[in-house]
C-alpha cells in the first residue's frame, strides 16, 4: 500500500504554484516579464582562494626541456591556464614525482629572474642514486605534467642590500642565479659578487648566461669560478675546492670589503656550506647577514612515522581548541583533515611557513629541516614534518 504524504499540505503547495503560474502567464500579457538576469546574492566566493584544506599539489606542464650539462637539465614550466608564476627570487617549488610506483616530494629552485617575460624553469642535477633527479634527467619531455606546491622559502633577495655576495656550489647555483640576475636587472643600485664552485668546467650550469651577465654589467657584477679539476687560463677559474680559505682568497683578490650593506647568500653541498659559514663568521661577518639554503639529500633524511602510534593532540587554532588523534600522520595532515586553517607552503620542511609552537608534549621532526636553533629553543616545530610522539598541545599562531 502506498502512503500518501500529507495530501492536504501538498494540495496547498499545488494551489500556490498554480496561482503563481497564472500570475506569470497573465503578467506577460500585460507587458511584465521576469528580469533576464538573476540579482546575485552576496558573493559566496571572496577574492583569493581560501587556504587549502588539504595538501593538494596543482598541475604544471613541461613546455621545453634544455640540457644544461651532461648531468643537469632545465624544465620550463607552464602553470595550468598559463597564469604567470609569481615568486620571489630564490624560492623553490615542491614537486611530487611518481617513480617506481611511489610518489616522492622534492624541492627544486626556480632559476629564472623574477622579471616580466622570463620563462619559469627549474634546473635539476643528477644526484648519485637519486630516484627523482635521475628520473627527470632521463625522462623529462615536452608535454609532461608534474604536480607542484609553492613557490616557498625565505632564501630570497633582500631588496635593500647594496652588495650581494653569492656563494654557490654545483646545483646550488639555481636560486643564486635567480637572485643575481633579478638584482642586476631590477635593482640598478646594487652590486653582485658571485663565487661559483664546480668539479670541472663541464659541470658549470648556466655558464654562458653568467658570462653574458658579466659582459652586460661590468661595473656591477663580478664573477669568479672555482674548479676542482681542469682550471686553465681559458676558463678564467681558480683551481681548488670551494672551501673557507679558497673563498676568502677569492674575495680578497676581488678587493672585497665587508660592510653593513653587504648580504651573503650561500647554497651548495653541506660540506661547502659549513666551511663557508665558519670562514665568514671568523672574518667577523654577523650571522644576521648570512643566508643559507640547505637541501638535504632525501636519501639522507631521517624518517619518522607509524611507529609513533596513535597520539592525542590538542590543536589551538582560530581561537578554539580542536581535539585530534594522529596516527603516524603529520600535525599538518591531521590538522587540515580536521578542518583547521593551517598555513603551509612547501610541505617538505623547507620553508617554515607551517611553523607551530609546541606548548606541551613531544613532537619529533624529520631531519634535517630549515628550522633554526633559535626557533627550536623557543619550542617551535614544523607541522609538515612533525609528528606527535606523546600527547601534545600545539598552537597555530595567527
Amino acid at each position, binding site marked *: 500500500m502506498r502512503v500518501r504524504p500529507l495530501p492536504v499540505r501538498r494540495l496547498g*503547495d499545488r494551489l500556490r*504554484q498554480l496561482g*503563481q*503560474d497564472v500570475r*506569470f*502567464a497573465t503578467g*506577460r*500579457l*500585460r*507587458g511584465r*516579464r*521576469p*528580469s*533576464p*538576469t*538573476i540579482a*546575485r546574492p552576496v*558573493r*559566496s*566566493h571572496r*577574492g*583569493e*582562494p*581560501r587556504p*587549502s584544506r*588539504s595538501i*593538494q599539489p*596543482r*598541475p604544471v606542464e613541461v613546455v621545453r626541456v634544455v640540457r644544461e650539462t651532461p648531468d643537469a637539465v632545465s624544465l620550463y614550466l607552464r*602553470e*595550468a*591556464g*598559463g*597564469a604567470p608564476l609569481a615568486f620571489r627570487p630564490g624560492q623553490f617549488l615542491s614537486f611530487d614525482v611518481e617513480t617506481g610506483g611511489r610518489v616522492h616530494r622534492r624541492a627544486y629552485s626556480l632559476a629564472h629572474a623574477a622579471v616580466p617575460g622570463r620563462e619559469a624553469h627549474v634546473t635539476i642535477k643528477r644526484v648519485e642514486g637519486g630516484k627523482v633527479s635521475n628520473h627527470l634527467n632521463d625522462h623529462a619531455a615536452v608535454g609532461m605534467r608534474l604536480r607542484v606546491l609553492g613557490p616557498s622559502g625565505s632564501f630570497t633577495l633582500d631588496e635593500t642590500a647594496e652588495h650581494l655576495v653569492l656563494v654557490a656550489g654545483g646545483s646550488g647555483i639555481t636560486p643564486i642565479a635567480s637572485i643575481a640576475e633579478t638584482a642586476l636587472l631590477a635593482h640598478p643600485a646594487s652590486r653582485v659578487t658571485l663565487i661559483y664552485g664546480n668539479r670541472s668546467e663541464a659541470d658549470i650550469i648556466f655558464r654562458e648566461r653568467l658570462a653574458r651577465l658579466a659582459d652586460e654589467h661590468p661595473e656591477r657584477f663580478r664573477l669568479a669560478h672555482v674548479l676542482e679539476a681542469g682550471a686553465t687560463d681559458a676558463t678564467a677559474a681558480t683551481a681548488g675546492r670551494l672551501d673557507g680559505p679558497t673563498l676568502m682568497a677569492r674575495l680578497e683578490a676581488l678587493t672585497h670589503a665587508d660592510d653593513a650593506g653587504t648580504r651573503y647568500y650561500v647554497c651548495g653541498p653541506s660540506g661547502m656550506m659549513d666551511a663557508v659559514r665558519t670562514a665568514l663568521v671568523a672574518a667577523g661577518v654577523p650571522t644576521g647577514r648570512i643566508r643559507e639554503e640547505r637541501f638535504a639529500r632525501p636519501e639522507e633524511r631521517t624518517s619518522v612515522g607509524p611507529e609513533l602510534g596513535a597520539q592525542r593532540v590538542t590543536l589551538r587554532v582560530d581561537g578554539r581548541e580542536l581535539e585530534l588523534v594522529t596516527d603516524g600522520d603529520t600535525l599538518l595532515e591531521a590538522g587540515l583533515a580536521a578542518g583547521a586553517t593551517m598555513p603551509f607552503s612547501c610541505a617538505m620542511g623547507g620553508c617554515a611557513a607551517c611553523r607551530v609552537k609546541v606548548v606541551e608534549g613531544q613532537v619529533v621532526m624529520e631531519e634535517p629541516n630549515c628550522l633554526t636553533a633559535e626557533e627550536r629553543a623557543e619550542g617551535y616545530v614544523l607541522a609538515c614534518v612533525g609528528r606527535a610522539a606523546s600527547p601534545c598541545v600545539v598552537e597555530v599562531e595567527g
Partner: protein
Amino acid sequence: MDPENLLKILPDPVRHRVEPYFDALEVMTSVKDPKVLASLGPASVRGLVFQRGKQGQPTLIPATHDAYFDWSYPSDQPEMLELYRRAKEGQWNGETYLPWATDVDPLDPEVPVIPEHFLNFDAFEEFGVKLDARERAQLRADMLAWQLSQFLHGEQGALLAAAQVTEAVQFFDGKLYGATQVVDEARHVEVFHRYLDTKLEKLYQINDNLFVIIDALMGDSRWDMKFLGMQIMVEGLALGAFGTLYKLTKEPLLKELLRNVIQDEARHVHYGVLALREHVNHHLGEGERREREDWAFEVAVLMRNRFRAYEVYEEWFEHKLTRKQWQHVVDTSPGMQEFRHVMFSRLVPNLREIGLLSDRIRPHYDRVGLLRYMEGKAAHEVTGDQMLAELDGRPQLSAA
C-alpha cells in the same frame, strides 16, 4: 491565418507580449508523435508559458521513478566498472586545481573571452542597430555570461538527474559509476558558479527551452528516458557547447576550467551509450524503441532551433529588434554555427550507436540537415583527450 503573418500585423508592444506564446505553440504543433507530445507538452507549458524557471523561487519537480535495489551485488557490466575506476582516478578539486588568481577582464581586447566574430555584427547593421566597439565587447561578454549561465543551470539539472539515474539504473556497476558522476556534476556547478560569480559578476536566468527539457526528463518515470535525456541529449549539448567555447576562448582560466570539465563529460556520455545500447537492443519492444527514437529526434530539433539567447535579446534589443530578427542574427553567427556543428557531430553518432537511428527515422534527420553527422565516432570510441586534441587541432593518435 499563419501565425507568422498574424505577428507581423500586430503593433510592437502587443507583439512583444504575445511572441513567447507563439513560440510555445510552435513547439507543440511541430511535435507530431502523440506519445512524444505527452512527454514534452506539459513540460512546454510549464517552461514556456508559466516560465517556472524564472519565477524567482525554487522549482519543485515531483519524481515518479522507482529506486532500484539489488541485494546480490552482481558484477554485471565490466565496461561500467572500468569507467568507475577511471572516474575515481580522474577526480580533481575545483578549488585548488584551477588558477583562480587569474585576473579576468571580459572587455580586454588583448585576451578576448570570445572572439570578435562570435556574433554576426553585420546583421545588426542590416537591421539598423549601431554598436560601437565598447558595446560590441560588452555584448560579447554578455553572450559569454549567458552561455556559462546556461551551462551552470544545465549542470544543476545534471547533478539532480545523475542522482535520479543512479537510483533508477538496473545495472549494479552502473550505480557505482553513477555516484562519481554526481560528484563530477557538483564540481561543475561549483566551478561555473564561481567563474560567473567572481569573474564575470553576472548570472542569467535559465533559458525556458532548457527548462522544458530538464522538467520533462526529471518527471519521467522511465529510467531509460532519463538516461536518454540526460546522458545523451543534455550531455551531448553540453559537450558541444563546452567544446566550442574551449576552442574559441583565449581566456586562460576559462580554457583550463573547460578542459577539465570536458574530460569528465566525455565519461558521462560514454556511460549513457553503454547503458542504452544494451537496453535498447535487448530489453525494449519495437514500439518502445520507436517512441524513444521519435523523442530523441524531437529533442534534437528542439535543441538545434531553440537555444537563441532570448534573455540577452530581452536585455539589449527588446525595443530595437523583433524576435525574428534576433533569431536571424543568432542563426547566422559563426560562433553559434560552430556550436551546433560540434554538438551534432557528437550527438548523432551516439544515437546511431545505441540503436535510435534506424532507417525509419533517417529521412527525418536528413530533412533537417543532420544526417551528415551520421558517420562520426560514438562516445565509446573517443576519449576526452582525443576530443581535446581535435578541438586544439592537434594531430591525433589513432583511436584504440
